[in-house]
């Protein structure tokens, strides 16, 4: 908390808060809980359209899938805790977002995990990577929610740090929606789940500060994951919700009981009384302050009518969960805490929940500057990029995740987007993307690019985009350049979403991502939902005897590309998003898929055309011959055509007889070759640039375990 905020609190309250009150104010006024630095900008995001049932403001957003089915969706970061305890930090991150979905009344059905690390050459980064993946696996697998996709990226700028984002979707029937706030006084507040301990005390303040060199002191922010209790909480909560007697529901996350109960009561102008001494404790000798702000995991807060308490309690008991009535809602908008019969805190509730925003100084910067594309042979460039840890298959990651549990995963990890079967006819596509290298060079276009890539990945599996959520990972907003890049990012996210007619239904902001004064690159991560007819889903891989077409225009846009990263080239211009072209190509590809014109589709993103083509060969049963000089492009350099990361592009493979019809769907479209054979062959004007057996390329693609020093 900043000095001016303390002053304001004293003025508003007309007295000095006591120790407990300060502690509660401290967590509620933290960046993490209050969004005080981000709120002014987040207002720019479009949040409504015909698909949106519930936009940002509660624990998760809700989207209409069809008249009987709604989808709850949310995204969370757990960066700081994962950087000091990768296993527990990542695992409890999963637990948190799953409870966010659950408390809307939805059954969590899938997770995505965009995760980022420093280079794998360093032992500490490997430790963080392995710990995070194991944490997500152990938690997601045990609670039976499949992790169906994600991103895994390695970058020098994250040395000794990690960004762990997790997105979750849940499925619900409209009548089961439960809000996070009460609309009446006299409801009993039931706390259920794990006992409260000292773990996680000051977690939100911890997440609102930079990490220091000495992380020992951050111990209290680390929690031990308990997926066993979480799984029981999921089933018990849903059973309770299905009775129709739950009036409001919230999980206990950052800010613990203080945050959950004050927000639940205060949102519509009511108040709450909490009897803190009734909270079941795991440790002896805890103070009321510790009880009120502990962030012990796997706890939920229910509001129910007094006459329904026993019935709901019995459900918890059936699942062997401990439950206690810890308070009630009151008419007066106050937040009152009792401890052994004594009133120990009494605040106007809006002092906790209405936190004034802060607008920091903004200072534009640009890391963009023109650079020459280095003189490098095609073969050398290809090997560098194809062998990059960012391009390698992440099978090692997703095979540790039970991505099939619940029996809905139609498209598994490894495809452009995951698809979950929702009913006999339709599926839900789910994907997450971000590109901090692009965002670093140009935060506005980087952010638009993240949205564009989400759309392309949805479209590539045949899905009509439905809705977005965003997770903004940034360094300290107190740095003017960072704050400016944040504002630019939000602007980019807003403009791109508007162009596609999409809305953000939920999101998350994580500031202060720095280790020892080294800020991270702006890292917006966007997750998207789409709806797809199961029969329509195309392949993502080559089979023999097809023509290969490229949709979209390739420009000399190597700034922030994988090739430049590998070559150590700094600067360049980030790829620009042409929203009109992006939209036109997306509808063209969707139309082609609907008409059954294409066999296989894959979007072009990181690593450019060379990588996209090779991925389709490695995933399939056939090689290809592709003449890159035929690609619709604004450059005549084979390197630029092959590795540029221009947006709006797709590769399609289709039978020759569909050519004419297909051509008519696009402005920029060309046949560049054919599938077949056992080699990947790149030509330029008929001359061979590179020829490699697909089997060899596959072996490289699957070499992540070797980079981690594994025997296999």
């Amino acid at each position, binding site marked *: 908390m900043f000095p001016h905020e303390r002053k304001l609190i004293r003025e508003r309250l007309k007295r000095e808060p006591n120790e407990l009150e300060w502690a509660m104010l401290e967590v509620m006024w933290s960046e993490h809980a209050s969004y005080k630095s981000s709120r002014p900008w987040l207002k720019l995001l479009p949040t409504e359209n015909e698909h949106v049932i519930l936009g940002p403001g509660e624990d998760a957003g809700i989207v209409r899938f069809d008249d009987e089915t709604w989808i709850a969706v949310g995204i969370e970061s757990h960066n700081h805790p994962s950087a000091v*305890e990768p296993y527990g930090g990542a695992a409890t991150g999963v637990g948190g977002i799953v409870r966010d979905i659950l408390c809307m009344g939805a059954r969590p059905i899938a997770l995505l995990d965009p995760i980022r690390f420093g280079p794998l050459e360093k032992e500490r980064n490997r430790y963080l990577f392995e710990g995070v993946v194991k944490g997500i696996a152990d938690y997601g697998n045990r609670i039976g929610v499949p992790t169906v996709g994600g991103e895994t990226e390695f970058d020098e700028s994250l040395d000794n740090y990690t960004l762990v984002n997790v997105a979750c979707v849940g499925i619900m029937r409209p009548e089961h929606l439960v809000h996070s706030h009460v609309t009446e006084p006299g409801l009993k507040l039931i706390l259920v789940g*794990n006992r409260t*301990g000292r773990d996680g005390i000051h977690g939100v303040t911890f997440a609102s500060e930079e990490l220091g060199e000495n992380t020992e002191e951050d111990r209290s922010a680390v929690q031990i994951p308990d997926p*066993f209790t979480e799984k029981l909480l999921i089933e018990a909560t849903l059973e309770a919700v299905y009775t129709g007697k739950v009036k409001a529901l919230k999980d206990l996350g950052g800010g613990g009981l203080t945050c959950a109960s004050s927000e639940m009561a205060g949102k519509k102008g009511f108040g709450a009384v909490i009897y803190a001494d009734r909270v079941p404790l795991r440790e002896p000798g805890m103070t009321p302050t510790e009880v009120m702000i502990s962030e012990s995991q796997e706890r939920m807060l229910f509001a129910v009518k007094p006459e329904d308490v026993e019935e709901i309690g019995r459900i918890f008991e059936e699942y062997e969960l401990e439950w206690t009535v810890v308070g009630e809602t009151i008419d007066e908008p106050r937040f009152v805490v009792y401890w052994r019969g004594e009133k120990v805190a009494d605040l106007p509730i809006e002092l906790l929940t209405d936190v004034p925003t802060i607008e920091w100084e903004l200072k534009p910067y640009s890391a963009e500057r023109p650079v020459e594309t280095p003189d490098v042979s095609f073969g050398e460039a290809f090997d560098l990029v194809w062998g990059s840890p960012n391009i390698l298959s992440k099978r090692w990651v997703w095979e540790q995740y039970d991505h099939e549990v619940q029996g809905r995963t139609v498209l598994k990890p490894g495809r452009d987007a995951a698809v979950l079967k929702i009913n006999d006819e339709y599926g839900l596509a789910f994907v997450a993307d971000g590109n901090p290298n692009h965002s670093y060079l140009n935060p506005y276009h980087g952010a638009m690019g993240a949205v564009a890539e989400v759309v392309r990945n949805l479209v590539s599996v045949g899905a009509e985009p439905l809705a977005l959520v965003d997770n903004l990972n940034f360094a300290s907003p107190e740095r003017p350049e960072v704050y400016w890049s944040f504002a630019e990012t939000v602007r980019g996210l807003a403009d791109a979403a508007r162009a596609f007619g999409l809305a953000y239904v939920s999101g998350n902001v994580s500031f202060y991502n720095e280790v020892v004064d080294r800020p991270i690159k702006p890292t917006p991560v966007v997750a998207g939902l789409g709806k797809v007819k199961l029969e329509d889903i195309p392949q993502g891989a080559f089979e023999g005897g097809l023509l290969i077409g490229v949709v979209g225009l390739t420009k000399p846009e190597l700034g922030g590309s994988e090739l430049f990263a590998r070559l150590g080239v700094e600067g360049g211009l980030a790829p620009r998003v042409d929203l009109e072209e992006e939209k036109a190509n997306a509808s063209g590809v969707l139309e082609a898929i609907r008409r059954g014109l294409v066999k296989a589709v894959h979007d072009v993103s990181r690593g450019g055309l060379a990588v996209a083509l090779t991925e389709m060969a490695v995933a399939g049963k056939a090689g290809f011959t592709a003449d890159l000089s035929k690609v619709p492009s604004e450059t005549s350099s084979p390197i630029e055509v092959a590795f540029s990361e221009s947006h709006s592009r797709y590769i399609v493979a289709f039978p020759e007889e569909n050519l004419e019809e297909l051509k008519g769907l696009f402005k920029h479209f060309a046949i560049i070759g054919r599938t077949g054979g056992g080699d990947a062959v790149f030509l330029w004007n008929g001359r061979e640039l590179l020829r490699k057996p697909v089997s060899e390329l596959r072996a490289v693609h699957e070499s992540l375990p070797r980079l981690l020093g594994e025997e296999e």
Partner: protein
Amino acid sequence: MKWRVTVTVRLKEGLNDPEGRVIGKALRNLGYAVEGLRVPKCFEFELESENPEEEVEEICRKLLANPLIHSWEYRIEPVS
């Protein structure tokens, strides 16, 4: 010189220990009057080293335990 090392890594006091709780409860259900069950992690190995104390301490800190949440102890004996 060669040493026989036994390391025991425990969760620090006060941290949630779901594993210990679940196993303890299972034993009570079977009728045993068991209390406060904990499941430390144990490691047994041989170490070739000139300064085993220092190395084992390092091994614990770097890999076998996370100092934030664990405490540890070890026994080092010469291999005969």
